[in-house]
């Protein structure tokens, strides 16, 4: 369960594009084993923050320490060592379209381990059965539904048993039932495997179902406006906008 030193430390992070900052001097910690949710309105910079945490984009300033090592400064083998500790599920799933689900999961194992093909096949099948796709290992991504693609993407992200899984908008574009199934899967994986989850979403039911802790970012202050347990923030936050968000109230139209 949630304990010990932070597994991710984000310090003084300033991110943006073409030197125009979207978020300024953001700092927060993610503790091992927790389901940590980054939320915010559309266009607030949630996905951008995630991209910087996984080292895809170079920040304007600041650092992201993953298990003690700074992914911003790391290059070459040091960076690969950090990347092995994380798995990422992208919003679109980003499965390789020319490979079957099993081949997608096999890929990181083939690249990083010296296991035999049979052993890798077994691990790939186990990962896919963990997300409920044992019957679809030979299917191409285009042959399965959007929810299945996302689950397969989670299986691929878990191929090398990472310490942290980053999920970008897992329930976007899914129906409520599939979305709830995905939430249950995230809960189960977190409880049974002890994996730390960093999830970007703005789906309220998902947030209440899975989040141990949230941070809420907002483009007006270019930073964090709330941090903590979403169930408490809903009623106890002093910021009207935060309460509005959690209670799903529309902002009055400008008059």
């Amino acid at each position, binding site marked *: 369960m949630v304990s010990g030193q932070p597994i991710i430390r984000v310090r003084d992070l300033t991110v943006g594009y073409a030197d125009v900052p979207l978020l300024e001097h953001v700092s927060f910690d993610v503790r091992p084993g927790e389901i940590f949710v980054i939320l915010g309105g559309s266009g607030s910079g949630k996905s951008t923050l995630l991209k910087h945490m996984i080292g895809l984009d170079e920040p304007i300033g600041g650092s992201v320490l993953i298990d003690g090592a700074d992914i911003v400064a790391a290059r070459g083998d040091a960076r690969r060592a950090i990347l092995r500790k994380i798995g990422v599920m*992208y919003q679109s799933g*980003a499965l390789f*379209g020319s490979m079957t689900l099993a081949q997608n999961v096999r890929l990181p194992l083939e690249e990083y381990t010296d296991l035999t093909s049979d052993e890798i096949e077994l691990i790939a099948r186990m990962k896919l059965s963990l997300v409920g796709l044992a019957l679809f290992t030979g299917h191409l991504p285009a042959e399965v539904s959007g929810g299945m693609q996302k689950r397969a993407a989670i299986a691929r992200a878990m191929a090398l048993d990472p310490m942290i899984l980053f999920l970008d908008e897992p329930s976007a574009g899914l129906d409520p039932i599939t979305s709830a199934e995905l939430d249950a899967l995230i809960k189960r994986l977190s409880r049974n495997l002890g994996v730390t989850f960093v999830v970007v979403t703005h789906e309220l039911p998902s947030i209440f179902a899975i989040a141990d802790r949230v941070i809420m970012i907002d483009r007006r202050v270019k930073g964090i406006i709330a941090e903590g347990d979403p169930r408490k923030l809903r009623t106890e936050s002093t910021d009207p906008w935060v309460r509005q968000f959690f209670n799903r109230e529309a902002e009055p139209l400008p008059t």
Partner: protein
Amino acid sequence: MATLAISDAPDGRRVLALSGRLDANSIRRVWAEGRAAIAAASRQRVVVDATNVDYCDGAGIALLVDLIAQRKPGDVQVANLAPAFEALLSQFDVREVERDQDPPPRPRGGIEDIGIIAAGIGNDLRDQVVFVGETAAALWYALLHPASVRWKDVWRICERVGADALPIVALISFLLGVILAFQSAIPMRRFGAEIFVADLIGLAMLRELGPLMTAILLAGRSGAAFAAEIGTMTVNQEVDALTTMGLDPVRFLVTPRIIAALLMTPLLTLFADLISLLGGALTLQSFSIPFVTFVHEVEAIVDYSDFMAGFVKSFVFAILIAGIGCLRGLQTTAGASSVGNAATRAVVSGIVLLVAVDGIFAVVYYLLDI
């Protein structure tokens, strides 16, 4: 149908009485009339009387808004509009909607344009230099560690680049041989020199046209395919997924394609050379030059260095076509149109580079006396 009646009220106000349906199909005439009537009544206040309007939709409301906005606030009033339509009209602040609240950005000056284009070219050049460096490093690594290459991908791409291209390469090079032979044989016949057509075809095809035509065909076929494929992967975040798995997209996507092109382009060039000679030989049969004579003539004039001059070029062309296709794919930003752009740019810059490099080869061969 909408109609407009203009009259003067006893209190001196001009009354525009609208009646009928106010929708997009019926208001065009009354709109112009209404505007003209308001312009004509420049000293009077105006009332738009909507008592007899029995239908009014968004277009009708736009007409009313426009009429109100013709004068300063309060001078034009809408009266007796049915409550259902009044509710529609009350949604809008007349002065706000009349004005473009999001005007197009200020047009850039010429100097700014030049700067932006120059910066774009600079960035593109930097990208290309970085890409050449990364690709060279990845190919060197592949050479030292052949086991690291995804050979399954290489063979799959070889099939698409090589075997699948055979029909079109055969067709074009055969036609090229036939046309070259036919067009040159007719004037040569006047001097009884048809036999030298074999020399022409042999030298031109093996040294220049064989490698160049094959390369241009491949730029159109495989260069565009590479760009579209990798471009789509970029848009779908598949390239991001590779990066966060710690797998270098250049090693993973570019290396197999360049190796496949390197293996296949020279073979296709060889094939194109032979087929075009065959085309030439068949054409010359109709000019009474037998096949054997053609072969002997080609053998006598074309030597090994001529063949190698063309063959060596095909390796360089292969790297260019595959490299530029992959680069354009990786440069794709977002959206379907940018994938199309990537494919177009791959073909255009591929062909431009091919011609430029072919020119350099011609100069080098001339200086080396090959």
